[in-house]
C-alpha cells in the first residue's frame, strides 16, 4: 500500500514538472487585447446613476405581488387540508360511538 502511494506521488510530481517545462519552452502567444488604458487616478462622483445601470423596478413589483398571492393561496390550501382531516376524524369517531 505504501509503495503504491509513493509511486502515485512520484508520477504526479513528474507530470507537474513536465508541464512546467512545456510551458517554459512554448512561446507565449501575443494576446489579442486592446491597448492598455491608463490607470484611473481619481473617482468622479455623479448624483444619479445612468438610466441603463439603474435597478429595474418591474421584477421587484411582480415579485412582491406574486409572493403575496403565493402565501395566501398556500395558507388557504393548508387550511382546507386541515379542515378535511379533522372532519374525517369527527365522522369516524361519531360512527364509532354510534356502533
Amino acid at each position, binding site marked *: 500500500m505504501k509503495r503504491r502511494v509513493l509511486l502515485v506521488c512520484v508520477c504526479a510530481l513528474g507530470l507537474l514538472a513536465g508541464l512546467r517545462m512545456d510551458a517554459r519552452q512554448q512561446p507565449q502567444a501575443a494576446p489579442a487585447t486592446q491597448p492598455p488604458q491608463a490607470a484611473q487616478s481619481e473617482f468622479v462622483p455623479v448624483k444619479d446613476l445612468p438610466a441603463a445601470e439603474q435597478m429595474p423596478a418591474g421584477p421587484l413589483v411582480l*415579485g412582491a405581488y406574486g409572493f403575496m398571492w403565493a402565501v395566501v393561496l398556500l*395558507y388557504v390550501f393548508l387550511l382546507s387540508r386541515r*379542515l378535511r382531516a379533522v372532519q374525517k376524524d369527527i365522522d369516524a369517531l361519531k360512527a*364509532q360511538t354510534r356502533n
Partner: protein
Amino acid sequence: MSPRTFSLVIVAAVAGFLAAPFLIAAAPYESTMGLVQKIFYFHAPSGMMMFLAAFLSGGAGAVYLFKGRPAADRLGLAAAELTVLFGLIVLVTGPLWARKAWGVWWQWDFRLTSSLLVWMVFVAYLLVRKYGGPGSDKLAAVVALFGAANVPFVYVSVNVWRTLHPKTTVVPSLGPGMREPFWFSVLIFLLLFVALLTVRLRLAAQQAELESLYRDLDEGSVGV
C-alpha cells in the same frame, strides 16, 4: 357568520383581488420612487391587517386569561396565525420595495426592527401552542398580550424616531389618483381577513368538537 354571508364575502374578496391590479396599474407613479411605489398598495394594507390581527389576538388572550372562555382562546389562536401570515407579507414586500427606493434590502431602524419583533412574538405564540404542552394556552395568551401591546409603538415609531420608512402622514395625504386604489386594497384585504378568520375559527371549533368526542369516548370506555 351564516354560509350565505360567508359566500358573499369570499366572492367579493376574489372579485376585488382580480380587479385590484387594474386599479393599481392605473394609479399615477410617485415622483421619486416611480413604479416600485406600487408595492405600497399591497404592503400597507397587509401591515394594517397584521396590526388588526395582533390586537384581536391580544384582546382575545386577555378575555381568555381573565374570563376563561374557550371561544376567546380559539379566536386568539386564529388571529395569531393571521398576524404571522400578514406579517410575512409585510416583511417580504417591504424589502423588495426598499431595495429600489432606499438602495438597501433592510435597515435596522425602529419601524422595521419593531415590526420584525412583533412578528417573531406571534411566531413564538404559535410555537408555544404547538409544543408547549398543558397550560400552554394561558402562556400563549400572555405572549399575545405582550405582542399586541407593542403594536402602538410600532405604528408611531416612524413619527417619533428618525427612520427611512415613510411616515404615517403619507396615507391621509394621498392624492386623488392614489387614494381610491389604496382604500380599495384596504377593503379587499379586510374581506380576505374576515374570510380567513372565519375559516380558521371553524377549524378551531371542529378541533374542539373532536377533543370533546375523544373525551366522551374515553369516559364511555372507562364507565364500561
